[in-house]
């Protein structure tokens, strides 16, 4: 089968690259080996939280020059400050136009989002119903808070959340009350304690009748507070149930993401994938690339498990297969490889002992490993760029997305950059 563009990988980078080339009038197919890392994410996208030397970043635009000095191989450094910021700003509008309800912007600077443990993490864009600190004051936007969890739900503890929140200085323990909701409407689910998870709960609570019982139980508890915080167990298909609940109980409701699976991340994935189909894209879900042919220096076609002998051909290919967990990178006893095409990697020494730091909490060298490119973001074989193989997202090398807090930004910026290049609007 032949398309103008084939995108390999349907995580954040792959979906955005695919959506953008469709917008530019190209035909596009997406090869998707099982659902993506968006399902494990918090539903927030970071841009740059720290510099490599550990300095916290409050406004990314002001830190990109220092980043380029300290990490010259970082994709932001390859693209340059101005281009990176331009693409980042476009990504904000791009995602909102495609139906993601997100707060935040590069112009406003990093916000602090609240993790399931009650700690704070700098972030760029976050689900609008998620609990965050006021970017201006660094405090919670409300004085008195009710943290309500669901009885039997193990993926978020109200007490841990409250005490850690107080420890950040954003509020005090006295200002937070916690409660455990009985919610008999969930009793059928409770018969399987191991499956009493955010997604299963949301699929019940999103029904108007169930939501009304939640409101009825919550309303008396919420009488003397300024806002209610719930685990993200509401809003499977849209965030509408959160807004409805807020109206019903008369105070703002915010959610805190729980342990994976991520309700919000999965919703974002579904919205973008459905939009990709609606815009005319073809999805090959649950498929994986098994082989390929070169045509001189270019990639001619790929073969997949589902399509067997029928190749998938395209003028341009986007590699957005993610890092180790997603299978874009593979490690063996003595080598790290790019899984599909064995593209040149940045760093990745053969000495296995050098891959890791002794303490798991230290930045890990292997997080930097990934595909080597120049500013055109094309993959390379033995130092020669493959003219039509464009690389986006965490399969790229030269940065530690966990230590720097930049994975979401790199995915979005590089996805739009490669799509622009394919569409001929830049480079």
């Amino acid at each position, binding site marked *: 089968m032949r398309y103008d563009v084939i995108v390999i990988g349907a995580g954040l980078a792959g979906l955005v690259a695919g959506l953008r080339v469709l917008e530019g009038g190209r035909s596009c197919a997406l090869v998707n*080996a099982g659902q993506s890392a968006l399902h494990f994410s918090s539903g927030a996208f970071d841009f740059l939280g720290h510099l490599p030397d550990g300095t916290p970043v409050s406004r990314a635009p002001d830190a990109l020059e220092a980043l380029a000095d300290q990490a010259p191989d970082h994709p932001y450094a390859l693209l340059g400050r101005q281009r990176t910021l331009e693409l980042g700003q476009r990504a904000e509008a791009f995602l909102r136009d495609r139906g993601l309800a997100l707060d935040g912007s590069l112009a406003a600077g990093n916000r602090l989002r609240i993790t399931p443990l009650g700690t704070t993490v700098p972030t760029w864009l976050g689900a609008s119903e998620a609990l965050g600190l006021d970017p201006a004051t660094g405090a919670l936007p409300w004085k008195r808070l009710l943290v309500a969890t669901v009885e039997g739900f193990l993926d978020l503890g109200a007490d841990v959340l409250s005490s850690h929140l107080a420890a950040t200085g954003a509020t005090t323990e006295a200002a937070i009350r916690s409660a455990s909701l009985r919610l008999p409407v969930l009793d059928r689910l409770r018969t399987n304690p191991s499956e009493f998870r955010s997604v299963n709960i949301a699929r019940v609570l999103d029904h108007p009748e169930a939501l009304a019982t939640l409101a009825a139980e919550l309303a008396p508890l919420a009488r003397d507070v300024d806002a209610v915080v719930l685990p993200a167990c509401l809003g499977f298909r849209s965030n509408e149930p959160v807004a409805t609940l807020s109206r019903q109980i008369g105070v703002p409701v915010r959610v805190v993401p729980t342990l994976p699976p991520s309700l919000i991340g*999965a919703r974002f994935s579904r919205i973008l994938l459905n939009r990709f189909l609606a815009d005319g894209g073809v999805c090959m879900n*649950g498929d994986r690339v098994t082989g390929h042919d070169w045509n001189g220096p270019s990639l001619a076609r790929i073969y997949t*498990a589902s399509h067997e002998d029928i190749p998938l051909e395209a003028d341009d290919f986007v590699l957005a297969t993610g890092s180790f967990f997603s*299978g874009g990178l593979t490690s063996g006893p003595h080598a790290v490889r790019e899984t599909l095409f064995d593209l040149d990697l940045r760093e990745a020494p053969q000495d296995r002992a050098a891959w890791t730091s002794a303490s798991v909490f230290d930045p890990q060298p292997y997080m930097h490993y990934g595909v080597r490119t120049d500013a055109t973001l094309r993959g390379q074989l033995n130092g020669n760029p493959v003219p039509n193989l464009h690389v986006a997202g965490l399969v790229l090398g030269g940065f530690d997305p966990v230590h720097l807090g930049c994975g979401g930004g790199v995915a979005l910026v590089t996805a739009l950059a490669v799509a622009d290049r394919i569409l001929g609007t830049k480079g």
Partner: protein
Amino acid sequence: MSVLDDTGFEACTKCTICTEYCPVSEANPDFPGPKHAGPDGERLRLKDPAFYDSALRHCTNCKRCEVACPSGVKIGDIIQLARNTCDTSRRPVRDFILSHTDLVGGLSANRLAPVTNALAALPPVKKILESTLGIASKRRFPSYARQTFRAWYGKEAAAAQALFKDQVALFHGCYVNYNNPALGQDILTVLNALGVGVQLLEDEQCCGAPLIAARFLDKARANARINAASLHEAVAEKGLSVVVPASTCTLTLRNEYPDILDMDISRWRPRVELLTRHLHRLRTAGRTATLHPLNMKVVYHTACHMERLGWAGYSIDLIRQIPGLEVVVLPQQCCGIAGTYGFRKENYDTSQTIGASLFELIEASGADLVVCDCETCKWQIEMSTSKKCEHPATLFARSIRGG
């Protein structure tokens, strides 16, 4: 090697993404979801089959869990094998009737079909079928043809088809044979327009999908042996490709025979494929037909087993060739019927709950027609929405004929 003999389930990381995409666990909280029913339960069942949980009967075998799994675990296969090997409960007469499609189709698709169809549509008859057998009375039953496709083919088509230099064999499936011979005729129209004649297999039985779902594994094996012999003869002895219009038959022949029935089908598997995939091959080889415009809007629904095959692109690309036709692809979700599942009284409500949001999308789409490669999705969509639903080959044949 069957799934039970290996430890593929160990690749499960407990991420629970499969449960998120399980249409049944969303509609019916009594089903614990694919992770729990599949890899989690398998550990226990391997120690002692008595750990089998009867809630596994709620699984529709849609395989959306397998498509969603980032770790390549064959969750649906694990559950189907467990149902067929660990569940020793009695199989109701109703399940025998629903799953033995050749028997029921053979008795119904004849000159008396109009009478049978009219009787089966009468509310009192449906009530009796529900109270005595447990067949959902709210379900609209598929109607039977006055003459089977095979009978029509033998009388009206065989001689003319043999005149084509190039030939393929058609695995028509029960639906074309007993319910909708017109689709079989459309398939002949399309292939003939591309210069290809159509033969039938020496003998063809139901592929076995409903038998596996109803735990009649021995009967499924017996059917599979007959089909495998016919397919082997067509592919290895006659050198023919075999085309299959229905996505579920295709999945069953190619994937369930080796994975559930433990058969070695490597000699014919590569040459047996979905009809629209074969049409893609013909087009790539330069065979084209003159197409007339169809000025209408259609929405394409990806059946669950089509999603598992990964081949929806062939059907979508096929109808996108038709001039004047606007094609919109619906979001990937189950319609709820799952073959014979939605015909069981106890599943009717779950079935309609699963499909509800799809029906709303179809109604709101402004489409003139729904297109889908699965006949049971067609029954569900036509019963639950105001739209007709047709196979891509029917639409393509219409464009060839000019309206």
